[in-house]
């Protein structure tokens, strides 16, 4: 495994600056600050309800934040500073930013009324304004990369979960984003289908994409991640390399989480 060494002089791709969000009284994100650098693969893990998906979804503005700032390549998400105050971005600006950020969802969210090929072509045509011929070529190539050349004409309902998720990855990747976000990409899959999706993600990581992955797949984190963020109760409690994290995460709750996940814990997980 050719692990890249994190060089902090590299360009920051995503910066969280004192980000907070609440749902009513519940603080989902509690003053989160962190930086993800260009080309880095960051795995975010933590117990369910810890705020990890919310943090990920805030990067492309699918979730709004109440306080703080998220910068993507130095540009604030969803707002800009103008004449001494913050004003909300227009829809066009938000769309432009989202083109740079690919997203893969737990439930795949493929468009069921389109074939695999059409799913991948959709963004190329309606957002990137490619003509049909160009879009077709790009979509074919991307699906081929995902080993799905024989499934281009299939509707999502005719594909296995693993195939659907690979089409979804192709759909995001075909847009040539600078950042790829994965929101529990294997959690909805049958265990025997997880491997094919992780393999595809591994090959994307090798291409040098900046990737932020929310997942419980600790083996993937160990092999692919440059850094691991452990989140609990809306705070990033641990930021460390996989080696450090798996030998000793250095925080009680992270240790408990790992223990539960790896099945090593003495304490039962159901109270």
């Amino acid at each position, binding site marked *: 495994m050719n692990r890249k060494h994190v060089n902090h002089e590299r360009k920051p791709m995503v910066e969280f600056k004192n980000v907070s969000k609440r749902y009513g009284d519940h603080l989902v994100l509690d003053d989160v600050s962190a930086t993800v650098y260009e080309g880095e693969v960051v795995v975010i893990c933590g117990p369910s309800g810890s705020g990890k998906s919310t943090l990920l979804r805030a990067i*492309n*503005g*699918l979730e709004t934040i109440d306080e703080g700032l998220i910068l993507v390549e130095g540009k604030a998400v969803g707002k800009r500073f103008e004449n001494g105050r913050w004003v909300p971005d227009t*829809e*066009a600006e938000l*769309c*432009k930013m*989202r*083109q740079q*950020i*690919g*997203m893969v*969802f737990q*439930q795949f*969210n*493929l*468009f*069921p*009324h389109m074939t695999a090929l059409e799913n991948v072509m*959709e*963004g190329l045509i*309606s*957002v990137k304004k490619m003509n049909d011929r160009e879009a077709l070529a790009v979509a074919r190539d991307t699906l081929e990369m995902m080993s799905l050349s024989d499934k281009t004409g299939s509707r999502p309902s005719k594909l296995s979960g693993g195939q659907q998720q690979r089409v*979804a990855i192709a*759909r*995001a990747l075909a*847009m040539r984003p600078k950042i790829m976000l994965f929101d529990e990409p294997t959690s909805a899959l049958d265990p025997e289908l997880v491997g094919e999706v992780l393999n595809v993600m591994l090959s994307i990581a090798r291409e040098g994409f900046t990737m932020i992955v929310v997942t419980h797949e600790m083996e993937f984190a160990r092999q692919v991640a440059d850094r691991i963020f452990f989140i609990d109760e809306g705070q990033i409690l641990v930021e460390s390399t996989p080696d450090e994290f798996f030998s000793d995460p250095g925080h009680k709750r992270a240790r408990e989480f790992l223990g539960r996940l790896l099945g090593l814990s003495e304490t039962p997980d159901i109270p």
Partner: protein
Amino acid sequence: MRSGLVGKSFFEVFRLTAPLFLKGAQMTLLLTCVSIVLGVCMGLLVALLKMSKRPACRMVGSAYTWFLRGTPLLVQIWLVYFGLGQFGINLSGFIAGSIALSLNSGAYMAEVIRAAIESIPKGQMEAAKSLGMTYAQAMRRIILPQSVRRMVPPMINEFVALLKDSSLIATIGIVELLLTAKLLTSSTFMPFTFYSIVAIFYLALTTVFTTLGATVERWMAALE
């Protein structure tokens, strides 16, 4: 001819007056079709207003359905036909009738359309947005094509309801099915005969469209 109908058997009267009723049915169908098409357009607009993020838009949408569902269709027809006359706007019966029926069915269509759009999983809009699509693009390319399938069966039900409601247009002098019956009655004094015949015509039309609706519903279900 009309006085010659007195004393003839029901079937004989039916046979002799059928061409008049067929013309009336044509008018009924024309009114219903025009109104359903405009009603769907109006309904889409109102549904989008009601789902808007802006409170002002939502209020306009709600006020629309509140008024049109909360007042009798007959009052709405008279408001457009007679009411606007007070301001010097004299619409023909057909135009006024179509406007009133369209506005009214728009309020019901809005609910049908909104329910269908809201039945599409949230992840579809999120996936479209994450690709960089605008709200309008996502609606047009992703959400509406999927929800149309779920809209069509209830829309056919609305069509059948509107077909019956269009009989109220008789009150502003459009010779559709009901007014045909009424005119024949007044010249022959055979109300039971002619209102029975008109009921048969309505029944034939609604049966055809209800059956069509059921077929389309099965067909759509198979498609999903």
